[in-house]
């Protein structure tokens, strides 16, 4: 498949993807243990947004669609968009097509934080205890990785990736040790969180990931020329007038923070940040001003649909979304690879 090059083609693609995303979100609101037809979903959404009046749906249906499902769908879209953005930027800045948001040790730090809270601290801040602790853990591991990787204020990609992997192993070892020696019931709940899930979503909490994803998007988009240059190499980037040291720090700090927030809210959802950027590149090429918006939209679209699968495959139970992204995403990519030949 040849990537889309023309301006008009690109705009059409953005429009189509945005339309698909909106439609998918609405459809997703109807799926689940209690099915709600699309027309009613649309009516409920419009009513809740204050655009239209009531209709022939029950209060219960409106509750399920708007209070339970809608925040979950929005969080899913945000997490997907955020992870895909982080993956795109990290792959460029490390010149490594296998770079992914969890590679920098953020997820294992978050896991360790979660374990400590569940096993020892208890719910010190209500439902937010776990995400809060996970974020603190993510932050600590990020600082640890950046400290280990930087030398004389200089941050080299190879060292960063290696430091991320090493720190990941050490932190995961600690987390596993605590789980192994700790209470079985608590271990289960941590395990469940690590597999990823959107169950924590509530309207009053959504502003945080929304703000972070938006800020991350703007920040990375403003760095997109630098990302193009860094993808070509260190010397090229310098010869084009970039202070590569600053750019690297900006990208790493920005992506780590964003990943930390997302992981804290939804657990370690794999695959999205690794593979969606590659799919986006197949669609529009690697130029980051074009790539980043498409990558974010594709990531959102993907997670929304995987969430639908996760809610319906073994209904009435939820499949942890991390399992679903890995299984569906992996299989999908294998098909794609085979077709390329």
């Amino acid at each position, binding site marked *: 498949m040849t990537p889309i090059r023309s301006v008009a083609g690109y705009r059409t693609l953005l429009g189509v993807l945005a339309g698909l995303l909106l439609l998918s979100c609405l459809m997703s609101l109807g799926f689940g243990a209690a099915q709600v037809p699309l027309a009613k979903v649309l009516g409920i959404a419009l009513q809740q947004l204050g655009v239209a009046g009531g209709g022939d749906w029950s209060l219960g249906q409106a509750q399920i669609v708007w209070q339970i499902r809608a925040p979950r769908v929005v969080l899913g879209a945000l997490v997907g968009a955020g992870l895909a953005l982080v993956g795109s930027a990290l792959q460029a800045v490390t010149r490594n097509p296998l770079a992914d948001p969890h590679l920098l040790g953020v997820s294992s730090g978050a896991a360790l934080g979660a374990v400590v809270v569940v096993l020892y601290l208890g719910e010190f801040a209500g439902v937010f205890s776990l995400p809060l602790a996970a974020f603190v853990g993510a932050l600590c591991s990020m600082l640890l990785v950046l400290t280990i990787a930087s030398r004389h204020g200089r941050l080299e990609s190879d060292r960063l990736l290696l430091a991320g992997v090493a720190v990941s192993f050490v932190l995961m070892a600690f987390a596993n040790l605590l789980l192994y020696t700790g209470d079985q019931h608590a271990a289960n709940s941590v395990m469940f969180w690590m597999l990823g899930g959107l169950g924590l979503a509530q309207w009053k909490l959504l502003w945080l990931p929304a703000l972070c994803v938006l800020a991350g998007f703007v920040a990375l988009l*403003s760095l997109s020329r630098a990302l193009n240059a860094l993808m*070509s190499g260190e*010397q090229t980037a310098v010869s*084009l*007038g970039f202070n590569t040291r600053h750019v690297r720090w900006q990208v790493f700090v920005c992506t780590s923070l964003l990943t930390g927030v997302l992981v804290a809210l939804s657990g370690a959802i794999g695959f999205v940040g690794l593979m969606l950027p590659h799919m986006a590149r197949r669609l529009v*090429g690697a*130029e980051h001003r074009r790539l980043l918006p498409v990558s974010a939209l594709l990531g959102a679209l993907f997670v929304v649909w995987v969430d639908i699968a996760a809610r319906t495959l073994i209904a009435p139970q939820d499949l942890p979304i991390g399992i679903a992204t890995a299984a569906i995403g992996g299989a999908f990519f294998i098909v794609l690879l085979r077709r390329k030949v």
Partner: protein
Amino acid sequence: MSLLQINNLSWEPRQRQEQPWRLEGIDLQVEPGEFVGLIGPNGSGKTSLLRCAYRFNPPDTGTVHLSGEDIWQQTPRWVARRIAVMLQEFPQDFGLTVMDVVAMGRTPHQSWFAGDSAADLQLIETTLQQVGLTGKGNHSFASLSGGEKQRVLLARALVQQPDLLILDEPTNHLDPRFQLELLQHLRGAGPGVLASFHDLNLAAAFCDRLYVLDRGRIVASGTPADVLTEQRLEQVFGVHALVDTHPLAPHPRITWISPA
């Protein structure tokens, strides 16, 4: 005032085991519009010296001035507006097009969020034409041959519209025809050129002046006829050679005979 003025520069590789020497006591000038060549055996420090000139390697001592300004007192962007570099560094195969790669050259002239203007696109188009890549703008960079990639990178350096063009082995991978076209084009293009060369006959044919680098020191400089003598080729390159005058042009011609 010289365009590029390097005074008493020294620079030591960060990883000492990489090279047994350091750049030392380097004095080098490039005048506006002048074509200056840098020659020397493999590992003599040509690439390191060029990196010092485009603000990649910070010198340990000595200074690098561009149009009278110390480049380390200026921002990378200031330097990138005045110096373009053609490297042997190819972009990773992430699916960049020829257009994407060449358009990067406009970066130092564009403001933060601005896209490529109509003038930028026009410039890119004519430059692609100049390097013989008309109509290849939408081709994937990775699918090009080595020579075509080299030309794309040259086009990127040219759209930067620099005062000084730094080229590291610009004629590697190129067919004879394009080697000659490229160098002829550069000679008349306007910017001063500082280029390292493997092929001493090309250096002799196109350079106004040459610097000879050996184990981190400049051991000779001057016009090709002054610099390229049989004795020096034996000393520096370790090769017996016959040097006479090119039958059709006034510059020297080198015929390699045997290792010394």
